[in-house]
């Protein structure tokens, strides 16, 4: 077990693709860090540099107190779980798990003890004699986890390990991986494009965009105080609404859809144009205290929730999504009175996307 630190790590692929543009990150011992971001933002590249599968163009990667930039993957004391599991197809499950231990010259009794221990932990004891092709996706996933666990490495690296599973299994494995990591306490870095996985699993969440880490924080902080419009829109489902707005003359209020709303915090630059963000679940619906009205376009009944897609009835007619708890008997074309409260508003600079 070890801490892990990245200092201004960059990756330029041959051909000039700048996949990672200087990421710095401190991972304390035993932490579970999730790298999340859209496809192609450089998550895998960053993880693979930590694993030693890609060279590091510049910057340093430290595992424990050791700079590992030029250390072979085998000697970095890490274990990795791949998206397609990458099990050795010709070996039985037992041998898959034992391979890394045998390569390091461990005696057979100890190998057996470790494999059995991991198999018990993952409840795959009855699969040890099978070949990978005789396993279901979920079972392969467990074997891949087992192969990482037996090594007792300083860190686990996961590259979208659940993305090949069906939705139900994904939820189940997500909970199991998190629990397992907490039980054995191994420092973990987990790559995913799924924001639910990111929010639920992370101790520290890194939101990546186009090769940069846009925000590194706890999931709660990232949800409540997203630092950029990108982070705000990427985390949360349905996505945060963004509305064009203008600050009032004294800078202490904001005018959204023609309606002034008093802000609670300090004053901002007067009369400037800004972007206001508001999460669909933080819009209050009801005639009492309503500030705006929404013309309903489409309704989605999710069972537990009702999602309303509509437009603000105001000039500009900005699109607005509202999430309501429970079943709401609404119809397209109806007008819904809503309230935008000051404490639910996130203010962003419309040109830089930075939080104000």
């Amino acid at each position, binding site marked *: 077990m070890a801490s892990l630190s990245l200092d201004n790590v960059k990756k330029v692929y041959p051909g000039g693709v700048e996949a990672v543009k200087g990421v710095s990150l401190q991972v304390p011992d035993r932490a579970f860090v999730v790298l999340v971001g859209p496809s192609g933002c450089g998550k895998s590249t960053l993880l693979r540099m930590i*694993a030693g*599968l890609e060279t590091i163009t510049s910057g340093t990667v430290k595992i424990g107190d050791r700079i590992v930039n030029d250390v072979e993957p*085998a000697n970095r004391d890490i274990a*990795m779980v791949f998206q397609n599991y*990458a099990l*050795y*197809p*010709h070996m039985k499950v037992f041998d898959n798990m034992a*391979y890394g231990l045998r390569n390091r010259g461990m005696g057979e009794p100890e190998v057996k003890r470790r494999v059995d221990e991991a198999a018990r932990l993952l409840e795959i004891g009855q699969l040890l004699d099978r070949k990978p092709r005789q396993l279901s996706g979920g079972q392969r996933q467990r074997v891949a986890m087992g192969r990482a666990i037996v*090594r007792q490495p300083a860190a686990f690296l996961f590259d979208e390990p659940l993305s090949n599973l069906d939705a139900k299994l994904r939820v189940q494995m997500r909970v199991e991986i998190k629990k397992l990591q907490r039980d054995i306490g191994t420092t973990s870095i987990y790559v995913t494009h799924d924001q639910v996985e990111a929010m639920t699993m992370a101790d520290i969440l890194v939101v990546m965009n186009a090769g940069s880490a846009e925000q590194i924080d706890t999931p709660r902080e990232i949800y409540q105080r997203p630092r950029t419009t990108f982070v705000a829109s990427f985390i949360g489902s349905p996505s945060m609404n963004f509305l064009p707005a203008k600050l009032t003359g004294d800078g202490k209020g904001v005018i959204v859809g023609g309606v002034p709303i008093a802000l609670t915090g300090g004053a901002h630059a007067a009369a400037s144009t800004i972007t206001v963000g508001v999460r669909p679940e933080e819009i209050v619906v009801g005639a009492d205290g309503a500030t705006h009205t929404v013309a309903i376009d489409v309704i989605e009944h999710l069972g537990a929730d009702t999602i309303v897609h509509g437009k603000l009835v105001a000039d500009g007619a900005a699109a607005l999504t509202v999430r309501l708890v429970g079943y709401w008997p609404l119809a397209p074309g109806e007008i819904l009175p809503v309230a935008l409260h000051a404490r639910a508003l996130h203010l962003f600079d419309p040109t830089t996307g930075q939080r104000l």
Partner: protein
Amino acid sequence: MEKRAIYGGLALPLLLLTPQLLVTLVFFYWPASQAVWQSFLLQDAFGLSTRFIGLENYRELLSSPGYYRTIGTTALFSTLVTVLSLSIALVLAVQADKSIRGAGIYRTLLIWPYAVAPAVAGVLWLFMFQPSLGVLARGLRSLGVDWNPLLNGDHALALVVMAATWKQISYNFLFFLAGLQSIPRAVIEAAAIDGASPTRRFWTITLPLLSPTAFFLLVVNIVYAFFDTFGIIDAMTSGGPSKATETLVYKVFFDGRLGGDLGGSAAQSVILMVIVIALTAVQFRYIERKVAY
């Protein structure tokens, strides 16, 4: 898993199969049955009279020491050609695979000329080892080796083995390369993280995953060495000197065509045919069971 199309009757499938069946009948079953029939006959040298003699041709063949010598030569020749062409092609393919990992079809196409070149170069081998004029022949002689495949049986055998091997390398290379490219990169990377050195990775991961390809090629190469090397042997040594490079297939030709022993030659081809059928059967058996993972 059942993969079976349902047809209403027998007429349509038969009709659709007719061309295939005709080709097989005309070009395989007809000559094959002729050979079997011939092998029971004794024909005089001028082809004027024939006589049914049952298994006499086989008895004579199996009691002649020359036939066993030819079997020995064939076994040695085939083993050398198969082992050499497989291992050289594998080494080349592994090198090529390293430099084109993950580069897709485009680079694979670029490799083709390299793969085909050895076949062209096979012709050059002949010139290079030609005893009186060849560059390498003279080089060998200057090293004290009295290189003379025209007189020395071992030299002649070495020469046809080299030429036959060379001709087969490109074919093996392409299959090995395709096999290597189809091994998922992540599996190799997982092994690297699992602490396996490149050499160990090759023996414990790459080679086992390549074994279906290797086994397929093994059978193809044995069949090649047995049958398709007739041209090389005929052109380079004509089975000589004093039958040192005479393989089974060459003997069929030599005895039947030049020696006029049609019955004995037919008996030999029947035996060869049995060998091919056995090899093919082995291939179908194993490729689906033991070697697949």
